[in-house]
């Protein structure tokens, strides 16, 4: 037990609150440079104007401390807990939710969570968060906050393909998901794809694919090739920024893979709008 490193819950709450504020008001550098590059590549004039408006919004939101988008989304919090960490003074989930409540209330971010599927009330402070935990080696605690807007999650899909469908079946499902979502998921998109694992796990795999810096390829060269194929096909759809027509419908496709059952190819496609907000802190 002498190797355990104590981390008080107050530290977790404080960091989560800070990340909620930062993520919602400051567009990450990787997303900005991807948007800048898109503005140079986009062939449609209205598409370029739209990309410039998105970049102007990011600059103004940061300067004024305003939410990039009124939809601060569902607050998804990934916590990687080093096996030598001992969280003290309370429960991790309470600490995270207090951080979300403080971050959203104090920074004038919209509460977007109803407490029940039907007949519910808005909880007002965006709690509860969705919390994904993993036990990892070491004595650090890594918190990643991903505010996930409703429009892009609504365009997301999950399917259970079979081995005969193969990679072409997966690619078609990915491209078709983007096509169906059209303008509603606020393109240009970042397309998170999970392939493998099981029905319950593949959705999280797709969501974790969104945590990568935009356009950072997968370590496996074959997966990088799949990512390129999907991106090229998606950008041939002509949807363009905001669906007004153009050559940049997606900024990147990020694929994560996992082992699978011999009978199944679970595929999840999680769409991320251009307001690709995230914040990371290591305690």
């Amino acid at each position, binding site marked *: 037990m002498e190797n355990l490193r104590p981390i008080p819950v107050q530290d977790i709450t404080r960091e989560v609150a800070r990340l909620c504020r930062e993520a919602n008001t400051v567009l990450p550098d990787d997303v900005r440079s991807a948007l800048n590059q898109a503005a140079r590549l986009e062939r449609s004039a209205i598409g370029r104007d739209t990309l410039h*408006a998105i970049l*102007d919004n990011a600059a*103004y939101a940061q300067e004024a401390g305003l939410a990039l*988008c009124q939809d601060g989304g569902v607050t998804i919090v990934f916590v990687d807990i080093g096996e030598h960490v001992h969280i003290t003074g309370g429960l991790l989930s309470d600490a995270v939710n207090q951080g979300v409540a403080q971050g959203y209330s104090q920074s004038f971010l*919209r509460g977007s969570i109803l407490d029940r599927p039907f007949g519910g009330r808005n909880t007002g402070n965006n709690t509860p968060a969705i919390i994904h935990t993993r036990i990892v080696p070491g004595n650090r605690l890594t918190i990643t906050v991903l505010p996930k807007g409703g429009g892009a999650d609504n365009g997301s899909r999950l399917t259970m393909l079979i081995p005969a469908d193969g990679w072409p079946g997966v690619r078609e499902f990915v491209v078709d998901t983007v096509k169906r979502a059209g303008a509603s998921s606020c393109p240009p998109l970042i397309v998170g794809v999970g392939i493998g694992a099981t029905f319950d796990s593949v959705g999280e795999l797709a969501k974790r694919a969104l945590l990568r810096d935009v356009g950072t390829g997968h370590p496996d060269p074959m997966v990088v090739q799949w990512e390129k194929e999907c991106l090229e096909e998606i950008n041939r759809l002509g949807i363009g920024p905001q669906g*007004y027509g153009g050559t940049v419908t997606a900024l990147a496709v990020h694929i994560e893979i996992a082992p699978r059952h011999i009978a199944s190819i679970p595929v999840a496609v999680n769409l991320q*709008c251009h307001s690709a907000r995230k914040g990371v802190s290591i305690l």
Partner: protein
Amino acid sequence: MTVKTITCPIEDPNELRELNAGDQVALSGRLLTARDAAHQALHQLLQDGRPLPVNLKGQVLYYVGPAPAPPGLPIGSAGPTTASRMDVYTPELLDQGIVATIGKGQRSSAVKSALIAHGAVYFGAVGGIGALLARHIRSATPVAFEDLGPEAMYELEVDHFPVIVLVDCSGGDLYELGPSAYRTRL
């Protein structure tokens, strides 16, 4: 491209007939907001044959649930939400007198038919630029369903609020016309 200016609410809906899909328009005057829960509430009142809390004649309905106003500002970030979630309610609200809606994303064919029948239009505001759009909003006053929080109906006073015509009075649809020039894959 020249930007047309329109004053809201719209006294003479005939001026909407001059608009074509893809036109840029600046809206000044007053807009009404409503999103999912407010639409459900309005629908319930209509079902029950009860009066609506606001007169919808000539109104432009903006699909938005704004972020709370920080100190010194009239409103927080306030960009459009996805319009298709309102599709099932839109025809009956057109019957009640609204002449335009503002949102993002494709509308159903039923909504497009209703827009043509009423000579109404569907405007788009760019999604995800709510901080910039809020600069065109001078005031926000709750007018109905206040208990719904961000989903309440507000009256927004706007100044040159930038929109684009997504579906015009003849059913011309920018989401069909725009992408067709760049589509190389079905």
